Every structure is written in structure tokens, then in C-alpha cells.
């Protein structure tokens, strides 16, 4: 009797996969309508209605289509998606960051190849680099509707208080600025390290500035490794920052949306390292739902003395949608609709505030920060996708875990590099 309970408890997790198959249902509904299952993660109150609006417009134009939207919070989304993918029954159209995680789906035949449709039937054109992030072995599986970069977002007023009208441009100057903010009683940096991915940006960016494209390529496809000096040094530089205790109290358990973005949006912290979506999430998480407005500035990640990377090298990524293997052709049609110039303009000017990918939609950008990001993306000689999406999933998890160890002071720079390398060597194909 009791043993049975024991077994059920343990295998329940493994069984969730098979149960989801039963629950997710398939395309043709009873009324003859084609159902499209659409999953995204813009769960903020201001953001999810945007997708509802686009879906409603599409259904109006295509009365035979019924779009079922599933919205999940970021971390929950990643978990649930991993589970349904393992069940072999992906949603018809769903949010993806491209890169290694998407490649592993494509490799297993869980995604639909839309190369043909995109090349011959698309209304809009998207930059080649951006499409490349959603391609695997020459085939296109989805498209980004926004593409941008990570950089430092700062509160102009708070920086001005400690004498910075222009943001610091070198790592040394950046550390000075942090010290001055701290001395003035201002929280220099907001960080949601409980989620781990916001912290891994710091380590990756330092590596990008230190070693540039060359170091990363050497470690991943060349004869080098993540034990190379670049990655150890990145940890050492990050330790210098951590030693200054620049983050809010309790940052190790804090979340991105609930804590980091809220601190910035409410003007309680001076800086954060985040991607192009930062202003939109800050607004959504702030108490007055207004955020910092034009008091918010953006700058690229500081240069590191003696680093081989260029200041124009950009780490970032896009948000895009990929098509599941069983999707009806209407789902591809829906993606075409979303990435049209008109709809990307709609998303650009609305609360989601995207940096659009469709060529011609960027004219809708009015926020100078986002215009700057848009320029940075096109000017980047080396565009590095976030490690947690680019590397194999298991290594991505190790990068995030290890950098959290650095932030908590339980791991040293060498251990972080060694942990990442050990996982990468075990996972690379």
C-alpha cells in the first residue's frame, strides 16, 4: 500500500510528460475550425493583452482559425516547455531564444522547417544575422520579432548625484562609480540572482570583452577550453565587483521581474545589466506602472583594459517564435502575420516596446535607448547569443549555477571555469 505511494511519488514527475500529451489535444476542433496552440511568456499584466490583440486581429481575418494562447511566467515556461518537448508534442507556435536549446529540438525533429515559406512567401524581410539565430544546419525553424542586446541600464538622476553625467566607459571607472554610489547610500546595482540568468550576463560579458569572438570560438569549436585565461580572468574581474557588495540586500534569492526590475522601475537602484526588454519590464514591475521614463539611460558594457574584444561586440539575443512539428499551415501564416512590418510596428509602439526585426519597422522606434540598441545590433561585428541559450542545455544550467556560486562567494574563478568546461566537454557532440 504505502510502497505504492512511494513509487507514484517518484515517477509522477516522469509521468507528467505523458499526461501532458493527453491534455494538450490536437489541431482540428469540433466546429471544423483549425486550432493553433500559441505559447508565450509575456505574463505581465501590461504585456499579455498585446498578443491577445494580435491573435484577435488574425482570427478576424481568418475566421476558420482558433488561436489558443497559453501564457506562463519565464521560469515556469522553460520548465513546462522542456516537459512537453520531452513528450514529443510541442505547441504549434511558441517562444524560443534560438541557439543551442532550439537546435536540440530541431535535431530531434520536433520543429517544422519553414525555410521555403520564409524565402518565397514572406511579406517582410528580417536581417540575416537575426534569422541565423533561428536556423540550424541551414534550415529555418522560426523567426525573431525582436532582436537586441544586453547592456547597462542606468538611472540618470542617481548617477548624476555622484557626479556622472556620462556613464563610465571602462571597467575601472565603472567600479569607481559603484564605490561612489555605495558611499552615497544608493544601491548601485539591482540583481535578481535567484533566477541565475541575470547574473550569468555579467560573467559572459566580461569574457566577451576580454577575449572577444576568438576566445569563445577557441573554447567551443577550437582547441581551447573554458579553462582558458579569458574565462578565469572574467571570474576574477567579476569578483572585484562582487567584493564591493554593490547589489541590494538578499539579491541571491531575488527574482528578475519581482525584484530587479521593480527596484530599477521604482528608482531604488542605479543600474542593471539587462537586455532590450528592460524598460518594458521595469514599467510593468514598477509601483506607478510608469517606470523611469526618460530618466533611464542605456550604455554598452564597459571596456576592459587590455581586452581583445571590441566595444561594439554585443551579447544579446532575440525573442522569436518557432513552429512545432505538428503545426497546421495556419501557424506559419500566423508567424508571417506577427513578423509583418505593420504588426512589429504595433508591438514596438505598445507596452512590449520591442526592438523590431522586420526591415522597415524600426522607423516606429522613438525611445532613444531602443534606437541605440537597434543601431548596436546592426553595428556589432561579433554578436554573442546568451550562453544559457547558445550552449547545450545542461552546460547552460552549469554556467548559471557556477556564476551564482561566484556571486555567493562559494566558488572561485578557476572553479567556475572548470565546472563550465567539464560540462561542455561532456555535452558537446
Amino acid at each position, binding site marked *: *500500500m*504505502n*510502497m*505504492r*505511494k*512511494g*513509487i*507514484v*511519488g*517518484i*515517477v509522477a*514527475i*516522469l*509521468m507528467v*510528460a*505523458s499526461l501532458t500529451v493527453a491534455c494538450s489535444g490536437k489541431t482540428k476542433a469540433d466546429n471544423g475550425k483549425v486550432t493553433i496552440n500559441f505559447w508565450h511568456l509575456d505574463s505581465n499584466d501590461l504585456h499579455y493583452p498585446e498578443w491577445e490583440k494580435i491573435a484577435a486581429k488574425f482570427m478576424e481575418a481568418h475566421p476558420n482559425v482558433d488561436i489558443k494562447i497559453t501564457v506562463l511566467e519565464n*521560469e515556469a515556461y*522553460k*520548465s513546462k516547455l*522542456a*516537459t512537453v*518537448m*520531452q513528450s*514529443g508534442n510541442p505547441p504549434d507556435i511558441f517562444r524560443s531564444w534560438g541557439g543551442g*536549446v532550439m537546435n*536540440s*529540438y530541431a*535535431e*530531434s*525533429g*520536433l520543429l517544422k522547417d519553414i525555410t521555403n515559406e520564409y524565402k518565397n512567401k514572406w511579406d517582410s524581410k528580417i536581417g540575416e544575422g537575426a534569422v541565423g539565430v533561428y536556423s540550424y544546419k541551414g534550415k529555418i525553424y522560426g523567426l525573431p520579432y525582436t532582436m537586441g542586446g544586453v547592456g547597462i541600464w542606468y538611472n540618470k538622476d542617481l548617477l548624476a548625484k555622484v557626479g556622472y553625467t556620462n556613464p563610465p566607459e571602462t571597467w575601472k571607472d565603472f567600479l569607481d562609480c559603484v564605490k561612489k554610489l555605495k558611499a552615497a547610500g544608493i544601491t548601485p546595482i539591482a540583481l535578481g*540572482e*535567484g533566477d*541565475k540568468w541575470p547574473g550569468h550576463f555579467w560573467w559572459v560579458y566580461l569574457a566577451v570583452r576580454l577575449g572577444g569572438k576568438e576566445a569563445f570560438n577557441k573554447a567551443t569549436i577550437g582547441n581551447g577550453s573554458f579553462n582558458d585565461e579569458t574565462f578565469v580572468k572574467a571570474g576574477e574581474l567579476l569578483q572585484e565587483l562582487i567584493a564591493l557588495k554593490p547589489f*541590494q*540586500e*538578499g*539579491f*541571491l*534569492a*531575488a527574482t528578475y521581474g519581482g*525584484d530587479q526590475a521593480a527596484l530599477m522601475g521604482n528608482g531604488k537602484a542605479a543600474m542593471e545589466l539587462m537586455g532590450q526588454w528592460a524598460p518594458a519590464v521595469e514599467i510593468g514591475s514598477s509601483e506607478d506602472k510608469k517606470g523611469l521614463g526618460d530618466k533611464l539611460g542605456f550604455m554598452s558594457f564597459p571596456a576592459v583594459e587590455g581586452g581583445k574584444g571590441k566595444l561594439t561586440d554585443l551579447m544579446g539575443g532575440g525573442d522569436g517564435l518557432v513552429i512545432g512539428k505538428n503545426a497546421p499551415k495556419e501557424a506559419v501564416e500566423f508567424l508571417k502575420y506577427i513578423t509583418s512590418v505593420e504588426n512589429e510596428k504595433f508591438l514596438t509602439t505598445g507596452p512590449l516596446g520591442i526592438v523590431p526585426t522586420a526591415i522597415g519597422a524600426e522607423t516606429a522606434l522613438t525611445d532613444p535607448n531602443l534606437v541605440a540598441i537597434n543601431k548596436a545590433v546592426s553595428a556589432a561585428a561579433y554578436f554573442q547569443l546568451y550562453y544559457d541559450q547558445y550552449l*547545450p*542545455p*545542461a552546460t547552460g*544550467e552549469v554556467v548559471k*549555477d557556477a556564476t*551564482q*556560486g561566484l556571486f*555567493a562567494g*562559494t*566558488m572561485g574563478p578557476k572553479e567556475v571555469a572548470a565546472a563550465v568546461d567539464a560540462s561542455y566537454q561532456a555535452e558537446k557532440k
Partner: protein
Amino acid sequence: MDVTTLAVTAKKGSSDHKAKATNRERALFYALLLPAFLLVTMFIIYPVVNTVFYSFYDWNGFGPLKNFVGLKNLRTLLRDPLFWNALRNNGIVIGFSIFVQLPIAFLLAILVSKSSSRPTIFFRTVFFLPYILSEIITGVIWRFIYHPQFGLLQQVFAKLAPDYSYTGFLADPKTVFIAILFVVFWKYFGFHMILYVAGLQGIPPEYYEAALIDGANPVQAFVYVTLPFMKNAIQMSLFFCIIGSLQVFDIIWSMGQGGPVHAAETAVVYLYKFGIKSSKMGFGSMVAIVIFVICLAFNVLYQRVINKEER
């Protein structure tokens, strides 16, 4: 135990019948057995067998199984210090539950079982309430309570000890597990208390009267009357407590995913993180098998001890 004795009598009954059992009766016997058999096979035996099968592969969860690795997953697992860290944390949950949670639940049970006056019933209900909450909701509520900027605890510290700077118990690898243990205690002590209350109320008052007449003091009455009568309840609560501690997951996950830096990871959290989140279903299956074997070993040991005592 009751279940085993029942099974034994059932066996006897059927063997007496066997001689007379017609084919029709036998067909009926199997027909009635079939639904339960199918359910157990489909939802318990099949997944377990499948999991064993997967555990010998290097498999990311999608696509065909093609990379047979034998016992490599097991070797990796047993060499991973993080897994031992997780098991150690499970051990701490078990130790804490047995030596702190259960005694307190027992004491409270004694306090609230004696009468059925309104205040007693009120407290009985209040103590039991946390158990009714779902694990995830419990986790989310306590995350708020512990929050370093706007949590309840922060407010309390600010009022009572203004000099103490509260930085969030969940944010420090040294305190996070203790903070979670407290929530585990808060959530489950009521359940064990109710088990004990039921046991205590089942003790016929005559035994206490007899003990009193024989000159037993309250401590002696407790040791010689209460405890022996409570043996079954204690055994049962111990069993739930240990199996529950081995499987604890939801509360920990919702209070910070086992972090910071693995400080609050237990075996199932480890399974979820390094199996499912890392897209390593083969390895994850091996973790599941090891946890299963541990539970099984415990169960066998438990049955042995209980049966020996009953003989």
C-alpha cells in the same frame, strides 16, 4: 499490520474455496481483478520499467534512444558531490522531522486531545490549517514572509530589533535550509498532530483509572499507558514522515529552486534540476531509480522491524 493480516485471511478463505471454485467463479475473479491490474500496470509498473530502461541511455528526452551507456549514469551520479549534498539534506529533513517535529506534534496533541471544549477545537483546527494549503502556495506565501525588502519578517525585525539588518534568510546559503525546514515543520506538524489526537482519543479512560488506583504518577501513566497505546499511531506517523522527507520537493522549489548555490537541494530537486531542466532524461531516470531504491530499502527495513515486533 492490518493490511497483512487481511491478506492472510483472504488467502486462507480462497484456498478453502479453491476445491469448489467453478470455472465461472474463476473467470469472475480475474474479470474483477482486471481493471485494478491494468491501472497498476499502466500507471505504476510500466513507467517504472521504462525509467529503468531509460537510465542506461544518454538521452536528452527527444528523439530515439540510441546512445546506450550502461552504468555510466550511475557512476556519474555517485561521483557527483552535489548528489551527496542533496542526500545529506534529505537526511537532515528526516532527522529534523523525527527529533523536532514529531515530539512537538505529540506534545500539542496531548494538549488539544483531552477535552472537546471550544478553545481546544479551535486550536486543533488552527494547527491543522497549514496542512490543507498546497505546497506551492505555502512556498509562495513564505517567500513573501522572508523577503528582505517588503517581507513580514523584515517589518518585524525593523520594529523589534532596529539594529539588526535583515538580509533575507532565503538569500544566504547558510540560513536558507533552516528557513525551509521551519516551513516544512509549520506545514506538516498539524498532520502528525491529528494522527496522534486520533490515537490518544482511542485510549479507553479505564486504563488511566486503573493506573491511578495502582498509584501511578502522571509520568508513569504516560510511559505505561499512553505510549504503548500510541505505538501504531507513532509507527504510522514515522512512516509518513520519512517517506515524505525523502520526496520533499514543491516547497523547496517554490522557495528558491534549491538555491542559493545548492544549499537547499534535496534528492528530488536534484533530479528535477539535473535531469529534466538540463534535458538529460537518461541521467534523470537513473537519479529516479536511485531514489526509488532508497525508498524501497527503507520500506523493506520498516516492514521487517514492524513484523519482528509483532511476532
